[in-house]
């Protein structure tokens, strides 16, 4: 799996976890499950953001080699 494919897969998971269906399901669970869901789903979003930043950072680096 390439970095781009990994980012694509994580984005698909992030998207799924943000839907009303999933949220409604977890709102009906006990506190432990809800807490865990919140932490882990937000963690995925942080990783997606970190990978996106890394991708853009890499591109910025390439462009900077073309200018001082």
């Amino acid at each position, binding site marked *: 799996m390439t970095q781009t494919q990994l*980012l*694509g897969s994580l*984005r698909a998971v*992030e*998207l799924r976890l*943000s*839907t*009303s269906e999933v*949220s*409604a399901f*977890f*709102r009906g669970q006990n*506190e432990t499950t*809800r*807490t865990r*869901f*919140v*932490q882990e*789903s*937000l*963690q995925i*979003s*942080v990783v*997606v*953001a*970190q990978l*996106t*930043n890394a*991708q*853009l*950072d890499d*591109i*910025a680096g*390439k*462009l*900077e080699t*073309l*200018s*001082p």
Partner: protein
Amino acid sequence: MIVFHRLKRTGRPFALALLVLAIPGVSGCRPNSQQHADFAKAGAIYTQSLSALLDVSANQSIDAHSVQLLQKRSIGPIPETLVQDFAQVDADRLQTTARLRHHSALLARYFNQLNDLATSNAPDHGADDVNSTTKALTQVGDELRNPSLTKLAGGRDFALPTQLAVSALIRGRLNSELQKRQSTVRAELKTQEELLAALADDNEQNARVLSNARQDLQVSTPLRAGIPPSGEEEWIVRRRTILTAPTTVEELHIASEDVAHLREAFEGLVQGTSGREKFDQALSDFSALLLAAQALQHRTGGNDSGSGGAVGGTS
């Protein structure tokens, strides 16, 4: 005819004819200055679009994180460490955006100077203006790290006996500039294709996440909790607004291809095979992209400012 008339008037026709023909790019089949100007214009419009897209993408990314935090807060407690993690990735994103914007500004200066030179009316302005424009282009060219233009202009006096020769020299310099800098411009455009593809993916993801989270917080959750009769009209409007908000922007998805078209036109320009239609296409592509970017800028600013309060009230 004008050429011969001017040469005759100076009284030095033979010497000047030799001088003009000796200038690189004047003789033979070379791209005309209009193609240089079109290339520069397309590049300038592109950099304008890019600046807007960079802003939109960064703002949308931050907003998507904010709405996600509010959505998840309505389900369970959020550890402070995660809040800090989001703050860090948002700060990093802004920092990277600033770097990309800085480069975009340099690129815009380069294209604008190139355009100034290509469209400069040398016969009306004389050698001094040509000198200053060429020097300015040299400075920007240096910023894009290519020593060729320094050598090209390098303190030389471009004042020539006639205005015609000055104008011809500019055209020759333009050809020479693009010939010598072609590998840099090619690499630049190739990397810009990559940047636009990444921005398009990121933009679509954030738009979809925002839409999902808003639907959950502002439509589904209030519906389950029960909407008072006085709030029903507002809920209907909000639901329609969220459901009809586009999550993809066609112009953004094909923007990477637009840059590829510009790169092809550039290849034709340096090889002397480019037709006017390729530049017309590039100008049209980037004008559409600029409009889409500006619309996105407007839409992002308008929507997000109103969503935070409404979302917060549902938790």
